[in-house]
């Protein structure tokens, strides 16, 4: 399956861009929000904003799963590591700043912090060293949470527990839809999260908020067609939910993944860096799996942390209210090799994506 060749066809892209130009409003600008770091990467890497008319703006919402982890939860992981317990995490979580230090700083100070590729690797690592205590820092949206559920329901070694920081996307989208000063006109819904949750959780956006919502994939044509479909809905005055990514997203989603998530996790209110507390947006371990909860096993619970550092505009960039180049620290004090804010750390962070592909952003910067 040559997805890249098919979905990067320049001729088709040009034709969609022409249609977008014809549908674009003449005066009142349209603001479309996506909520996935991979969408931001596609848009920036392929220079899609350069193809859009001045009256069509695509902004990046809170779609970087490491960027939205609040400092308090990183502080908990650091505290656990400082107790001499091995903390395993995904690579891009390592440098995300906590209140005073990141996990990488803790590692530099002598703590045992290790990078894993998957929750399954964290289990294997713990099995290999039964005399050490391990904690897996489980972060990510609905794409990642099912893998944590699979491992928790499997044969876990006794020396492993989980610091669960999973979040779910629809409540954050609802918050954005309700932000009056953000003035959104449509959503490009996250394709890979949608493979798991399906289409139903997005129905509320066209129905209750009048926002056209299109589930889109991650090739340039996917995103362009998503923008086109939203403009067409606005033009027709008929907001609805469309699935452009039908090659992997089914209406019901991945039912097995949903079932396993429900079995292991319950919904709780959760903090998001830059967004505050969002009701029913965090996955918490159910009572019957409390034995695997790193909080109770290691006696760590930090309620408050310092999410933003002086001058850093991550809290505004995460919700698309500001662009990275509007931050005084961008590419000055805050750079990919020495990040200040979380958005410059994660490979799906808006600042990092812009910094790494700055030449393609010529008309934006």
């Amino acid at each position, binding site marked *: *399956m040559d*997805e890249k060749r*098919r*979905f990067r066809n320049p001729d*088709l892209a040009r*034709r*969609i861009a022409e*249609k977008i130009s014809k549908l674009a409003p003449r005066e009142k600008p349209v603001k479309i929000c996506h909520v*996935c*770091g*991979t969408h931001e990467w596609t848009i920036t890497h392929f220079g899609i904003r350069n193809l859009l008319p001045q009256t069509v703006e695509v902004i990046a919402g809170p*779609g*970087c*799963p*490491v960027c939205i982890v609040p400092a308090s939860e990183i502080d908990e992981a650091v505290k656990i590591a400082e107790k001499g317990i091995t903390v395993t995490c*995904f690579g*891009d979580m390592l440098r995300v700043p906590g209140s005073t230090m990141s996990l990488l700083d803790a590692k530099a100070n002598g703590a045992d912090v290790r990078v894993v*590729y*998957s*929750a*399954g*690797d964290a289990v294997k690592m713990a099995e290999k060293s039964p005399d050490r205590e391990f904690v897996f820092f489980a*972060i*990510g*949206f609905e*794409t*990642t949470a*099912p*893998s944590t559920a*699979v491992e928790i329901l499997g044969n876990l070694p006794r020396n492993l527990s989980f610091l669960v920081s999973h979040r779910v996307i629809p409540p954050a989208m609802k918050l954005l839809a309700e932000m009056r000063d953000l003035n959104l006109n449509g959503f490009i819904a*996250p394709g*890979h*999260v949608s*493979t*798991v949750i399906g289409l139903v959780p997005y129905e509320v956006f066209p129905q209750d908020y009048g926002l056209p919502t299109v589930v889109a994939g991650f090739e340039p*044509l996917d995103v362009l*067609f998503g923008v086109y479909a939203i403009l067409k809905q606005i033009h027709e005055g008929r907001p609805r939910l469309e699935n*452009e990514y*039908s*090659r*992997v*997203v*089914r209406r019901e989603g*991945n039912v*097995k*993944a949903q079932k*396993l998530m429900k079995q292991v996790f319950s919904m709780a209110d959760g903090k998001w860096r830059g967004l505050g507390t969002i009701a029913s947006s965090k996955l918490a371990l159910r009572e019957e799996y409390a034995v695997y909860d790193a909080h109770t096993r290691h006696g760590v619970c930090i309620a408050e942390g310092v999410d933003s550092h002086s001058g850093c505009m991550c809290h505004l960039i995460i919700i698309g209210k500001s662009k990275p180049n509007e931050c005084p620290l961008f590419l000055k004090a805050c750079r990919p090799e020495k990040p200040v804010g979380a958005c410059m750390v*994660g*490979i*799906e962070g808006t600042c990092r994506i812009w910094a790494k592909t700055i030449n393609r952003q010529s008309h934006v910067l």
Partner: protein
Amino acid sequence: MCLAIPGKIVKINDSHAQVDFGEGVLREVNITLVETRVGDYVLVHAGYAIQVLDEKEALETLNLWNEILRSETENG
């Protein structure tokens, strides 16, 4: 993190499969979350297949786009 990569299942061993990501990259992937068989393309995220790609739907999407663009051009 929400990055997911398509790959082809080449061998299945219980809950795990060897997945070919092209250009010589083979990795073991957990397939607990999907119903799949050798030859299927799966979407892999952080070591787990999260969905099976539908080849027919991929082609139909492109055909549909071409059709929409063509019909709207004809209609002005």
